């Protein structure tokens, strides 16, 4: 993006992840999606313990193992090798999705292709001709987890807004997203639409609104 060549506006991926981490309460059961969401685990504030769920059957997921220490049968939903913390538990897929569907997880942090102002999420398919459709556990997560946060770049690589009036891509779930963390701002999905919660360094309201495909309500105090 042109901004980064002159003076950086907004947050890096790590800063986005760090900001999300601040909003997660001690003791939460959390499922982190593949990609930027995975970074969140690195920034959990001192004194808080989170328990990570991975839908392929592990509660108490720990960090990646040291080189050569991994087990190809201990992986996360992204199929990367992970570890298990003391106090972990393994279970089968029906039990794992009972946790999800049954509303037992406190939070899921997901990436997005598009988020609509009513909380609709599209994150599994661009609906492209000839693409192989693949959904995984995304639809179950958004339907079942208590709170869905999205972490995403504010716009696509070509500058198209990802926060929109209504999604044009196939939906993952209806009205499921409660908060969006982007490189430019933290934005809540409210009954009135998108509402700005926090700006990032160098980004003002107009700057964020310009890059948002729906009306943005100002900070409320």
């Amino acid at each position, binding site marked *: 993006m042109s901004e980064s060549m002159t003076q950086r506006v907004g947050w890096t991926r790590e800063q986005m992840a760090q900001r999300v981490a601040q909003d997660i309460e*001690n*003791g939460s*059961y959390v499922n982190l999606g593949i990609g930027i969401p995975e970074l969140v685990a690195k920034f959990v504030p001192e*004194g*808080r*313990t989170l*328990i990570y*769920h991975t839908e392929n059957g592990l*509660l*108490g997921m720990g960090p990646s193992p040291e080189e050569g220490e991994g087990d190809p049968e201990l992986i996360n939903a992204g199929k990367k090798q992970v570890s*298990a*913390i*003391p*106090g*972990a*538990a*393994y*279970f089968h897929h*029906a*039990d794992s*999705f*009972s*946790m*999800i*569907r*049954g*509303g*037992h*997880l406190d939070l899921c942090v997901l990436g997005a292709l598009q988020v609509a102002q009513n909380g609709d999420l599209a994150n599994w398919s661009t609906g492209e001709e000839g693409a192989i459709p693949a959904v995984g556990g995304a639809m179950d997560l958004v*339907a*079942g987890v208590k709170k869905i946060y999205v972490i995403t770049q504010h716009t696509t690589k070509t500058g198209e807004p990802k926060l929109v009036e209504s999604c044009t891509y196939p939906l993952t779930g209806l009205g499921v997203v409660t908060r969006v963390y982007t490189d430019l701002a933290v934005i809540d999905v409210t009954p009135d639409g998108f509402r700005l919660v926090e700006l990032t360094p160098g980004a003002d309201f107009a700057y964020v609104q310009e890059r948002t495909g729906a009306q943005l309500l100002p900070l409320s105090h």
Partner: protein
Amino acid sequence: MIDKQISSPAEAVRDVFDGATVMVGGFGEAGSPIELIHALIDQGSKDLTIVSNNTGSGEVGLAALLKAGRVRKFICSFPRTANSTVFPELYRAGKCELELVPQGTLAERIRAGGAGIPAFYTPSAVGTPLAEGKESREFDGREYVMEHGLKADFAFVKGRSADTYGNVVYNKTARNFGPIMAMAAKVSIVQVESVVEPGGIDPESVVSPGIFVSRVVEVAEPAHESELIAAGVSYP
């Protein structure tokens, strides 16, 4: 820092409120969380809906809770047993409502409640009085009845051991309804003989993962219903 251990049964059941739905584990005396039930008797909440496979024996545990007049409704598969006189008397006197559910349907309804399934179809009870008034439907030429998921405000469960994250293992056939009730309740309270540190239970052998368990409380030497009855105990 996560520590779900609570100091006493009294403390663990402190916030049970009037009118609450409480699932209580156990099949007969196996898995009956007697100390939690007795703490609930002491605690005083009333108009309770109890979900449990049986209605208790003698005048301890569930039977004592019934005798204390605290149960408005019982959801149950088998409300009579050899030593059970309390429930039958209340029921005949119209003082306690009964919803009779086939045992497997009861288990599946509880599991569905915990798994976010609002309703499912089962062949059990088709054509019997227990299917009367229920919606039925054919799949592949066979008739099924629709049953609803069942949730609760609290679950009282008896395990063998737990860690402070709430992972629980059970003892033999005392497992029965415990794991699914823990799933189906907003607040799941598990009494165990010993609470250990995280890592003290093999993650391959955990039966109730901690996400389903809100509170664990140590009762090192839990009473057995049959022993209390043999000793002539009537609680409180």
